[in-house]
């Protein structure tokens, strides 16, 4: 713990946070162009190439909107809610490794030798990673409740209550669907989970080790049901369509953010898309091999790269390739989020609650029991 270590850590955390924040305008663009593509329209295409600068125009516009508090609202709470909305997504995202660790060799500065440093590509490395992310994500309900209550408006209040009830209902299925995969990994640490998913698919039945060479060793092959339940539950957690009942325009005006506009609305957006990114990153990390590329090992790639470039440069390229591999998987799941939103119609509220409590919870329980029994019988 010296000066440069803290310096690099803070820089790294800023980079990861800004990565999350800058993904938001891009995602909004993907959402708008994607919905246009699905509905056979053009979407925003005037500002800049492919309408890409539309986001910049929107952001600038947001800064020049008037900020005001409704008459019946509580000012502090009203302004607190958008800030609170940022916290769960940003902190949960910090616990997930986004690539292989980066080695910074020893160097001289201020007449002293510093380092070498080994920095994992994540804001903080926790032994209880998975539980930590679940715990932090469960704080997401507060921003909704604060927004609904601070606005002093019955539509906001109803929207907040519905959003919160939906969120907590699906949190059960979310937590329980992860028990199966945790039984198989036997650890909470994201880094251990990632390392276990390297190489070809292998498991042992009794005393016999079985290796299936043409498949990667990803969690999805051990827990297909768990993965599906988890992904569906994250849709409800992020309040996205087809579970976007909290903001059902036809019934509730716009839900908990009826009274919000301008930059406060943007902060809610960052929060929502942050949740989506955490969900996609968790899906990638737990079920789809995280940053690992099938049939490629980090060492193998490094020695391959070393064969035609300098060692220092090769390390950076290796780092970048694995990060891009992670981000591609995340972007795929983000695209699924957009795709589903513009394809599947919205549920009715009682159908939504029935799905969460009466279908997904029993199935998740079934998944857990089957996994535990199978592990015992096949051991």
């Amino acid at each position, binding site marked *: 713990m010296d000066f440069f270590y803290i310096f690099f850590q803070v820089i790294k955390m800023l980079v990861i946070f800004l990565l999350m924040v800058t993904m938001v305008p891009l995602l909004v663009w993907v959402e708008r162009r994607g919905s246009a593509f699905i509905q056979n329209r053009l979407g925003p295409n005037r500002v800049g190439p492919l309408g890409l600068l539309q986001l910049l125009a929107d952001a600038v516009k947001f800064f020049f909107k008037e900020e005001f508090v409704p008459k019946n609202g509580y000012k502090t709470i009203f302004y607190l809610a958008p*800030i609170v909305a940022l916290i769960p997504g940003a902190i949960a995202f910090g616990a997930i490794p986004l690539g292989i660790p980066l080695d910074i060799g020893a160097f001289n500065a201020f007449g002293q030798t510093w380092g070498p440093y080994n920095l994992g590509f994540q804001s903080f490395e926790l032994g209880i990673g998975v*539980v930590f992310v679940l715990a932090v994500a469960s704080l997401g309900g507060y921003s909704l409740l604060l927004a609904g209550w601070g606005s002093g408006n019955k539509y906001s209040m109803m929207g907040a*209550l519905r959003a919160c009830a939906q969120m907590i209902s699906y949190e059960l299925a979310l937590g329980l669907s992860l*028990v199966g995969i*945790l039984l198989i990994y036997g650890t909470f640490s994201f880094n251990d989970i990632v390392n276990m998913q390297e190489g070809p698919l292998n498991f042992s039945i009794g005393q016999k080790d079985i290796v299936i060479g043409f498949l990667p060793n990803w969690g999805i092959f051990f827990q297909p049901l768990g993965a599906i339940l988890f992904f569906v539950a994250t849709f409800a957690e992020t309040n996205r369509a087809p579970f976007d009942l909290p903001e059902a325009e036809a019934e509730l005006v716009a839900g908990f953010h009826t*009274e919000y506009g301008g930059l*406060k609305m943007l*902060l809610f957006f960052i929060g929502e898309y942050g949740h989506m990114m955490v969900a996609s990153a968790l899906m990638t990390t737990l079920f789809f091999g995280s940053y690992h590329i099938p049939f490629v090992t980090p060492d193998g790639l490094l020695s391959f790269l070393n064969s035609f470039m300098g060692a220092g440069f090769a390390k950076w390229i290796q780092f970048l390739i694995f990060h891009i591999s992670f981000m591609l998987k995340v972007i795929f799941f983000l695209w699924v989020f957009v795709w589903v939103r513009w394809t599947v119609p919205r549920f009715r509220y009682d159908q939504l609650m029935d799905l969460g409590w009466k279908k997904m919870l029993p199935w998740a329980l079934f998944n857990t029991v089957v996994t535990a029994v199978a592990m015992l019988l096949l051991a």
Partner: protein
Amino acid sequence: MSQMLWIGILTLIVITFGALMLGVASLLGPKVKSLVKSEPYECGIPVPDEDKSMSKTIPVQFYLTAILFILFDIEIIFMFPWALIYKDGIEAGQGPYLLISMGIFIALFVVGLVWEISSKALDWEK
């Protein structure tokens, strides 16, 4: 322990970011006061004086769902340490014991869930 430092710093970064954005926006934006603007949104009809109608008819379902959520959430959290030690337990030959002890717990969980469903406590349609 040092992980706490990073979590704390990240929280500070996030809060500063949010506060900064809101601060800049409230500095740059126009400020035109009007009575109508600050009224709660009401789809165009005049705003009722006091909205007491909502609190008098408490939708029981919301808090019932929340209470049941707490109870089931705790049961699920109890399964996490079990999931952690189960793999090692099987290797140490304690697999059946762990499975049965959690099996009883899960059976209680299932009885609770089945009771809730059959007693229509989780039904939203009246």
